[in-house]
């Protein structure tokens, strides 16, 4: 185990903080609340080939220690909302201003993934997109005599479906895929499902100010905003999940990251095209979405 860890630390391109990873792996054995009866012998640590599985076992064990109450009790769900105001602000700041080469999960979440951020960021994003889409349509048609203003309340439910489906199903699929790869190839960094959801939820935060600024009915402004938001949140996702696939086959690792970023692009461009009427009535947004869809489908 130690040898492999030192190898990991030597790598110059290491995206994850090696010290943090060491603490993470050695955490359960140092913890005083460790159950002696649980089957976690030293044999697993000596066996380098099993380290990937052993690590995931340990993270599960850590999670089991943290939330001791069974899942039907209210206390079990309280552990997902066990955050303070400053922690949520720190995480939001970390997702808006990513530090190059730093892992979002290890830097901010640190084995305390919360669902408060993802849930309320998604809720805010839903209403931000629906309301500012409606406002921008109103501004575009302002002054036209024939235009009759319509609140378009139905777009709230459509936005809610899209955003919540993206923020839960994509992490689920990604987590399943990483678990499956973990059973084949040794990966030192592995994330739990909650950590994946947490990263995705916080990475969507940058779209809230973007959606508000999309009210400006200028095509150039909108596309610049999309590119900025996509660059920030895409880099957060890529830097977080790159360590989890780095040990894998180069081609699969790259394909995973490209798929993550492409799905993110599809979400933002799709939202812009669907909820915000183009100022000029040409079909540029629709034409841009189509190739992305085919690429995503091919993956």
């Amino acid at each position: 185990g130690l040898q492999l860890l030192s190898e990991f630390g030597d790598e110059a391109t290491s995206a994850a903080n090696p010290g943090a990873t060491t603490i993470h792996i050695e955490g359960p054995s140092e913890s005083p609340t460790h159950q002696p009866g649980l089957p976690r012998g030293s044999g697993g640590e000596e066996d380098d080939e099993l380290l990937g599985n052993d690590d995931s076992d340990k993270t599960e064990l850590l999670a089991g220690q943290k939330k001791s109450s069974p899942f039907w009790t209210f206390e079990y769900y309280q552990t997902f909302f066990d955050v303070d105001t400053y922690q949520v602000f720190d995480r939001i700041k970390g997702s808006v201003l990513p530090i190059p080469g730093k892992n979002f999960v290890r830097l901010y979440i640190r084995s305390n993934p919360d669902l408060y951020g993802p849930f309320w960021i998604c809720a805010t994003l839903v209403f931000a997109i629906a309301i500012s889409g409606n406002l921008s349509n109103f501004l575009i048609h302002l002054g036209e005599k024939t235009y009759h203003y319509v609140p378009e309340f139905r777009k709230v439910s459509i936005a809610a479906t899209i955003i919540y489906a993206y923020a839960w199903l994509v992490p689920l699929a990604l987590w399943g895929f990483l678990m499956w790869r973990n059973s084949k190839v040794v990966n030192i960094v592995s994330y739990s499902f909650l950590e994946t959801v947490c990263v995705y939820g916080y990475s969507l935060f940058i779209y809230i100010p973007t959606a508000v600024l999309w009210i400006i009915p200028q095509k150039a402004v909108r596309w610049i905003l999309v590119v900025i938001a996509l660059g920030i949140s895409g880099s957060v996702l890529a830097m977080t999940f790159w360590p989890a696939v780095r040990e894998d086959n180069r081609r699969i690792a790259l394909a995973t990251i490209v798929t993550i970023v492409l799905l993110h692009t599809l979400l933002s461009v799709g939202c812009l095209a669907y909820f915000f009427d183009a100022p000029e009535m040409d079909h540029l947004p629709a034409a841009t979405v189509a190739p992305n869809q085919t690429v995503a489908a091919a993956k």
Partner: protein
Amino acid sequence: MAKAAESSGDPGTTSPRPLFAGLSDISISQDIPVEGEITIPMRSHIREFDSSTLNESVQNTIMRDLKAVGKKFMHVLYPRKSNTLLRDWDLWGPLILCVTLALMLQRSSVDSEKDGGPQFAEVFVIVWFGAVTITLNSKLLGGNISFFQSLCVLGYCILPLTVAMLVCRLVLLAEPGPINFMVRLFVVIVMFAWSIVASTAFLADSQPPNRKALAIYPVFLFYFVISWMILTFTPQ
């Protein structure tokens, strides 16, 4: 429970000795009867209270409930640090406010497919589902407030926004134009702020100090969405 305590004691010595002597005997042997003794006065008091409402006239009962609802309305309109809204909750006020709001947001057009405004059921779902979500959120964050108390406060604090809706409908009777919109915008913003101030006055103390902002933010979002529905309402 007192009877049980007597029967468990020695039957020969029950009649002359004072009540407390028997009690002290039992508390030494097992402490469960003492616990029962503590709850008895409260329960009998409640039973007395119930029997007193049983033979009052229906008018009195309705008037008392209406008075309670009206008192809570006053508490929302003039928010103080008071526990009346929290101590005895009811959901009559929220129901009345929610139905009134949803009815006023209903537009008169026949073809409901064409108009994009919120339907009666959508308003209802947003208000109740939103209030339940906020309550669950504050409970999950570790707030010490009961589920229905929080629902009651959130429901009653819609009152300023319902008033705003009423004002908007009256203003919309006048000639439409930018001034008309400005008046509505002003009314809705003031009433939105009022709702926020009132609900935070009641709810903020129930949260640990380092999580107040996390619990208040969803409330802000909730009233903001309702304000948006009111502001964008157009008849026809």
